[in-house]
């Protein structure tokens, strides 16, 4: 167990490597109840989110989800978010646990006067995620009133899991197919237990935060606090696509983001494969010709690639023209190879 943003979280249940492999090959079960849930209700909710976030959420169809960001006036990322439109006038915003208070405060502020109620619903929900190629097969017999096949990637629906009411969404943070089950806190344990019973014969294992981190890293997904933070805009992270300049009306950060889009990012996020067994960890320097040209944001062994991988921010121009890069791993310059992100992409 470990402390994480005020929550007690399982870092691992047994072996994080085995948990990672289970998600790639069969299925893993995650307790993600720490994630923040913020509800926006009312006829002005879509317009409020269009103003508050970088995305064009008012065009989201009910039953669909979108990955988006909330930025400060200067374009710095305050959090990355998944937004579900659960009904015409009902949106559920999923924030990182450590940022929930900031996101809530900002959404309240930015939604004021727009006919939308902003509510912290974090305590109303537990979140159980089942991820992996076997996830749909395991969940289907337990799902009531839900046609899982009709829930496309980045969509969700109300229904029942193990007889308990839930919002079931085909989203995740592992690079695999899978579902996130939002339920009442008191229903989390029976849902979890039913999924364990149903899934164990198919290879499902409970998986902790450590496996979640290596899975998302292989999938090239950014983590707030590592790849994302107030010092970068979405453009540095290679996620400029989440900024919808063509949406009507003003939105927070537009001016700064437009300027950054025009000038180009001040650094760029890359993937590295480390030519060693040693791990290039968060904060380690990246060097070209002995000069520091960047910094590692996340690093871990990749069970799928059988090599350590990392994401790093490089200065503009660094890493081009077959320049040899190294990572300073506690005093040793270890060669690193630029690798296209994501490191891993599941077969469709």
């Amino acid at each position, binding site marked *: 167990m470990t402390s994480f943003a005020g929550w007690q979280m399982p*870092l691992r249940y047994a072996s994080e*490597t085995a948990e990672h492999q289970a998600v790639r090959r069969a299925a893993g079960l995650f307790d993600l109840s720490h994630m923040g849930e913020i509800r926006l209700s009312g006829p002005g909710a879509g317009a409020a989110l269009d103003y508050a976030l970088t995305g064009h959420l008012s065009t989201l169809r009910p039953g669909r989800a979108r990955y988006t960001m909330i930025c400060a006036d200067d374009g710095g990322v305050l959090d990355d978010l998944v937004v579900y439109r659960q009904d015409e006038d009902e949106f559920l915003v999923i924030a990182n646990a450590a940022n929930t208070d900031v996101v809530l405060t900002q959404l309240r502020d930015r939604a004021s006067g727009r006919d939308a109620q902003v509510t912290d619903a974090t305590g109303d929900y537990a979140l159980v995620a089942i991820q992996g190629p076997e996830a749909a097969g395991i969940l289907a017999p337990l799902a009531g009133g839900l046609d899982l096949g009709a829930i496309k990637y980045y969509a969700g629906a109300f229904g029942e899991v193990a007889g308990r009411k839930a919002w079931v969404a085909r989203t995740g943070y592992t690079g695999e197919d899978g579902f996130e089950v939002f339920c009442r806190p008191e229903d989390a344990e029976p849902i979890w237990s039913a999924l364990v019973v149903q899934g164990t014969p198919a290879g499902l294992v409970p998986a902790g935060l*450590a496996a979640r981190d290596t899975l998302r890293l292989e999938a090239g997904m950014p983590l707030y606090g590592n790849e994302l933070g107030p010092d970068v805009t979405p453009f540095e992270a290679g996620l400029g696509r989440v900024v919808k300049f063509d949406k009507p009306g003003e939105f927070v950060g537009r001016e700064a983001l437009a300027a950054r889009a025009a000038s180009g990012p001040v650094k760029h996020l890359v993937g590295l494969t480390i030519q060693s*067994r*040693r*791990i290039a960890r968060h904060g380690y320097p990246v060097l070209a010709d002995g000069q520091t040209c960047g910094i590692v944001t996340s690093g871990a*062994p990749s069970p799928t690639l059988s090599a350590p991988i990392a994401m790093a921010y490089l200065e503009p121009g660094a890493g081009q023209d077959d320049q040899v890069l190294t990572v300073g791993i506690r005093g040793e310059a270890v060669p690193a190879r630029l690798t296209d992100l994501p490191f891993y992409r599941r077969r469709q």
Partner: protein
Amino acid sequence: MSVPAELHYTPEHEWVSVEGTSASVGITEYAAQQLGDVVYISLPTPGATVTAGEPCGEVESVKSVSDLYSPVDGEVTEVNTELEDDPSLVNAEPYTAGWIFRVRVAQGGDGEAALPPDLLSAAEYEELTKSAG
């Protein structure tokens, strides 16, 4: 969790097994569990002199990197090269196949290996891990 009675221990979670003047060293099952899956071990160099309580290598797991401390004074005679290919032996069999290095220690006046006086017994070490939660 296993804490073999015949071994000596350190508060830094190394174990020591002594035969004559040869001391075998590894990390405890408790340490291996705390670290999680070990992915790399920086081994000391055979022939190197090690000092009790001083770092002589590193144990790297998925989530962290920790110094490996020598529990004894002496000269490294052998390292477990199996760990270069399979560092997970430290998790799977911490007290046997997962041993890390061997040290030739000086003989004391009694002809036995001269060990630092502050090594812990199995009971003392178990107590320490329990109080650590």
